[in-house]
Each structure stands twice: as structure tokens, then as C-alpha cells.
């Protein structure tokens, strides 16, 4: 190929019209160093390209990368979008299941259990000597804050109401029990307690509470209390008042 041919080829080369094959000829031509002085400016690009093509990453590079790929292999085996989405869904379902199972976060449940245990411990009869009245009142009040009560708790409160040495603790227990009036056995226990209580304060409170919750079955107990000679006047008046109010409520509801 002579210099004129090369010049024609170069003209097309600069217009971006040469094929890869033609460019190959040009490269060989310039690599052989036969270029004319006029072609020296053209040689620059070809010489650069030859040099640039020979560049490679440093010798240790491939081994380094392969080592890292091996290391990453295990971690990325669970990669891929489908796997990620599946894992996400699984987690979501697990979350829902857990939420249904516990109804309320697990932490709260644990805390409640701890609280209940503490209340039971403070109010237990055997512990009475070791706990102060204010501790027990606090425990009784904590009962009313529990979101859920069971028979254990109401029985504990009933015991406290009947058996605690301290009047104020007994009063607090009465008040607390009224908030659980719908629990089985609570109303009956309040009526029974009215018969057995000897302290005027507690008797009055019980009468008021029983009237407030409209417990008509308490009328007998109140009448007994009103007729009893051991009852002090204030309590007798209160009992009579309670009986009349409850009977009035009965008449009202009857008419």
C-alpha cells in the first residue's frame, strides 16, 4: 500500500468512516514506521493507542480479586432480588404471626407478669409482718392498673379485704374490688365481707359501694347489720339508708 492510499484512508479515518479492518491496516502502517514527514501528526494517535492497548492491571490483581470473590461467595449466595423479596415477606408474616400470638408486645407481657408476681408477693398473708401498710395499699392500687385481672388477683384482694390488719389497706382493697365488680365472685365476696367486717369505716364504705353498684342481694346483710345490737349508730343509720335506697331502686325498676 503506497502513501497515497494511506492518505486517502486517513481522510476517511478522520471522518469516522473507516472500517475496523481498514483501521487495522493504518495501525500496522504506522507501527512499521514508514510514515512520511507529513504523516507525523497522524502517527501520534496510533502510537498512543498501541501503548494504551498494552496496559493491564498489575500482575497480582486477578488473584486478589478472585480471593475476595471467594470470600464474598458465601454472603452473596442469599443475594438476588427474588430471594430478598421472599425473605422480606417471610419476615413480615413472622411479624404478623408474632403480633397475633402475643396480642400486645412481648415486653409488656413480661413486665406485667413481673408486676403481678410482685403484687402477689406483697399482699400474701405470710408476708404481712414484713411489709408496711403503705406498701400493701400501693400493691392494691397497682391491681386496679392492671389491664387484665384473673381469679388469683381478685381472690388476693378479697383476702386482703377480709384479713388485713390495717383498716386502710382493707378500705383500699374494697375500693379496688369494686372496679372488678364484673369478675366472678367479687360481688358475693363484698356481701359476705359486709357481714364479717367489724370496723365502722369499712362497714360504711362497703354499704356505700354496694348501693353504688346496685347490689340488691346485699339488702339482707344490711338489714341484719341495722338490727344488730353490736352495730354502732352511724353504721346502723347507713345500713338503713342503704336498704331503703336499694329497695327504692327495685321499686323504680319494677314500675
Amino acid at each position: 500500500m503506497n502513501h497515497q492510499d494511506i492518505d486517502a484512508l486517513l481522510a476517511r479515518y478522520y471522518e469516522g468512516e473507516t472500517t475496523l479492518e481498514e483501521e487495522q491496516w493504518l495501525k500496522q502502517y504506522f507501527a512499521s514506521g514508514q510514515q512520511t514527514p507529513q504523516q507525523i501528526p497522524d502517527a501520534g494517535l496510533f502510537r498512543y493507542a498501541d501503548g494504551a492497548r498494552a496496559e493491564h492491571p498489575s500482575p497480582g490483581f486477578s488473584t486478589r480479586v478472585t480471593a475476595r470473590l471467594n470470600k464474598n461467595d458465601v454472603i452473596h449466595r442469599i443475594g438476588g432480588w427474588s430471594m430478598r423479596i421472599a425473605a422480606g415477606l417471610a419476615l413480615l408474616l413472622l411479624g404478623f404471626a408474632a403480633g397475633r400470638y402475643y396480642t400486645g408486645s412481648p415486653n409488656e407481657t413480661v413486665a406485667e407478669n413481673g408486676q403481678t408476681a410482685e403484687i402477689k408477693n406483697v399482699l400474701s398473708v405470710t408476708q404481712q409482718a414484713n411489709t408496711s401498710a403503705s406498701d400493701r395499699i400501693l400493691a392494691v392500687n397497682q391491681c386496679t392498673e392492671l389491664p387484665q385481672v384473673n381469679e388469683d388477683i381478685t381472690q388476693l384482694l378479697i383476702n386482703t379485704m377480709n384479713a388485713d390488719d390495717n383498716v386502710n389497706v382493707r378500705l383500699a382493697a374494697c375500693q379496688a374490688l369494686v372496679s372488678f365488680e364484673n369478675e366472678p365472685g367479687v360481688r358475693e365476696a363484698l356481701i359476705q365481707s359486709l357481714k364479717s367486717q367489724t370496723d365502722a369505716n369499712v362497714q360504711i364504705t362497703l354499704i356505700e359501694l354496694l348501693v353504688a353498684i346496685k347490689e340488691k342481694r346485699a339488702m339482707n346483710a344490711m338489714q341484719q347489720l341495722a338490727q344488730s345490737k353490736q352495730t354502732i349508730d352511724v353504721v346502723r343509720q347507713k345500713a338503713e339508708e342503704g336498704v331503703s335506697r336499694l329497695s327504692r331502686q327495685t321499686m323504680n325498676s319494677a314500675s
Partner: protein
Amino acid sequence: MDLQTFKQQILPVQGRLFRLAKLFLRNREEAEDTLQDVLLKLWTNRQQLDQYRSVEAMAVQMTRNLCLDKLKSHGYARRTDEADLSLIQANMGTPHQLTESADTAAVVRQLIQELPEQQRLILHLRDVEEYSFEEIEQVTGISINNIRVALSRARKTVRDNYTKVLNYESSGY
């Protein structure tokens, strides 16, 4: 895709990816870092590689994007500016040697660096990596006609500027 297949398919291309990264970043270490990032990314996403018409074209695109991201970061720009300054000084310090082949390549490299990014990429893919126009279209998303135009401009600009450098030297500095 297991490691063996991956090595067979991707690692032969790594020379090309490395040269491309070096074209953008002008620094061996940075180019190797980028290449490593690209290879790890490809390996991470190897399950999806089958969906691509050309893994190589995708790898080239990825390398280019990663390089452009790196160049955009502030810290990188400052570092390479300093490197460039020393490079220019080194080149200009020995004008009488410009015609020697190693320096010719260095001067032309410098001239190519001054081209707009797109022209630089197309010139590199065609004249260094010997891509067909179709392959360049696949990598850049530019139509073949526009690739020809950009290539023509890039080649002419480099030749004209190189001519200027040569004249500057022969005029006695």
C-alpha cells in the same frame, strides 16, 4: 453462575475495564480499585447477568458510571488536579524529547484527556479497544451516526492539537 463460569466470562474483559477506568481516573491504583468494585458488583449480581444481551457492554457501562461518580466526588477532583499539574510539568519539561514514542503517547494522552467526556469514551472504545460501531452503540446508547460524528471530531481535534504541539516544539520553543 459459579465462580469458574464467572472467571471465564468476566475476567478476560478486566483488561478493557481497567484501561477504561484508567482513561477516566488517570491513575493506576484508582483504576484498579474501581475495577475491583465493578467485579465485586458483577459477582454480587451474577444471577441477573444472564438477562443482559452483552455482559461486557454492561460491565463497561458500570465501570464508566462508577468512574464518573468518583470524579464527581469533591475529594477526588482535588487529588487528580494535583496529579495533573505534575504530569503537565513533566511533559513540558522535556520538549525536545516529544517525538520519542513514550512521550508522544504521553502528550496524546494529555490531549485526549482534554476532549469532552463522550468523545473521549468513543475514541477510546474505537481506537484502543477496537469496538465495532454496534458495540459502541450498545455501551453508550448513542446512535451510530452520532458516534461517527463524535469520533470524527475527536480524531481531528487530537491531530490538530498534536500538530500544534509539534510546531511549537520545532519553532524552537
